[in-house]
């Protein structure tokens, strides 16, 4: 099922992730290790950017990959690519960790986590390799106004709401909303142009 997301687009080649995920469904340890090697730097970088603390970030990354190992057969993988889904799960976990101060409230590693929705790739999306994709996203973020970039980063990496960002930046709520929306639309256009 998961494999279909990578094979149903005609000319696209089957991604290495698709092959590895199909083996992961068979509890192939080697496939899991290759997936980890392919994506752990991206996931850990994201979580570290959110939590700003190495040991806690490693705990979260461990949780994320164990979820992947244990619940691979539960993914509705027919509609969305793997990496956005993995990053969404990692971000949700990291923000949970950031928000919940009490250790008791934190999810335990062995508790089944609520899995994120499948991230559906838009029609214009093409399978760029990870390196090129990262370079493009960073370039687009750098092209935003400082206010747009700051507001989006506060929302994405710190999990703040519009009102919280407005209070943090001491700017009107409507202005913050505009910064975020316009920044995301510019990012969207930039990615569309790239592909």
């Amino acid at each position, binding site marked *: 099922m998961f494999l279909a997301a990578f094979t149903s687009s005609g000319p696209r080649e089957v991604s290495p992730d698709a092959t590895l995920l199909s083996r992961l469904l068979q509890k192939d*340890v080697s496939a899991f290790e290759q997936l980890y090697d392919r994506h752990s730097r991206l996931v850990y970088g994201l979580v570290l950017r959110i939590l700003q603390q190495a040991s806690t970030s490693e705990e979260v990354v461990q949780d994320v990959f164990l979820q992947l190992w244990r619940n691979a057969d539960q993914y509705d993988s027919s509609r969305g690519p793997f990496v956005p889904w993995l990053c969404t799960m990692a971000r949700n976990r990291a923000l949970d960790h950031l928000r919940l101060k009490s250790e008791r409230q934190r999810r335990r590693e062995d508790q089944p986590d609520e899995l994120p929705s499948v991230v559906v790739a*838009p029609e214009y999306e093409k399978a760029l390799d990870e390196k090129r994709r990262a370079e493009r996203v960073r370039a687009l*973020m750098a092209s935003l106004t400082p206010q747009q970039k700051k507001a989006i980063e506060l*929302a994405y990496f710190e999990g703040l*709401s519009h009102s919280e960002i407005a209070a943090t930046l001491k700017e009107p709520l409507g202005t913050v909303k505009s910064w975020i929306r316009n920044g*995301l639309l510019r990012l969207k256009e930039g990615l569309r142009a790239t592909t």
Partner: protein
Amino acid sequence: MKNCDQFRELIEAYALGSLDPEERAALEAHLATGCPDCSKAVEEARWLVSQLAYAAPEAAPSDMLKGRLMQTVRTEAQSQSKPQVMPAKSSIPFWLWAGVAALLVFSVYSAWNTHRLNDEIRQANERAAALRDEHEKTEQELALAKREAMILMDPNSVKIALKSGDAKGPQLEAKWHSEWGVVVMGENIPMPSPHHVLQLWFIPKKAGEMPMPSMMIRPDANGKFVLLVSNPPESMDATKALAISEEPEGGSPWPSNPPRYSGGVS
């Protein structure tokens, strides 16, 4: 009520998770109506937001993290790959069952044996107690016999003949030692009447004083008896004579019958 265009303005922020609660609730209510355009827009916005992950600088986690993960994964993979076999008969070797059975038999035997040993110990203790009582009794009898022998053998003991009131009757003999007491012996003594015993009396020298009651005895089947009075109620000097009368069982405080046997203390 907002139309789709107004909701569309919220969709990127919704995917980002930055909408305030009221706006988020309103948008989710609209999405719940099944609006296809807004639903598709949400999907695209989620993908767009997911791309922000690449904005974070990549970083390498420690090798220890990978080590921990792989160890956990390998352990879980091994446990899942092993079939969950119910303990079959063949999974436990016969010798183990035999060992368990032998252990069970041994346990039952041990419990039974323990009970038996406890019972034997209890019986042995009872026998030991009985022997101890018997031994003490024997020692007391031995002590009395020794005392009787000392009284009878000691030259300082005073011999007292107790003659029967019947001329044909037997004669008893007593020996009195001033320190060790009095021994009275007799042979061929007729048994007292039923429910009666023979009681020894010490007759004081002082006129008008009543006879002093002493010990009681029955002759054995052969008509013999030996009576030891370790602590006579009167001293030899103050005693005029010894006498034995037949008295009811339990004895009497004073003579209720004439003396059967009597003899003066010289």
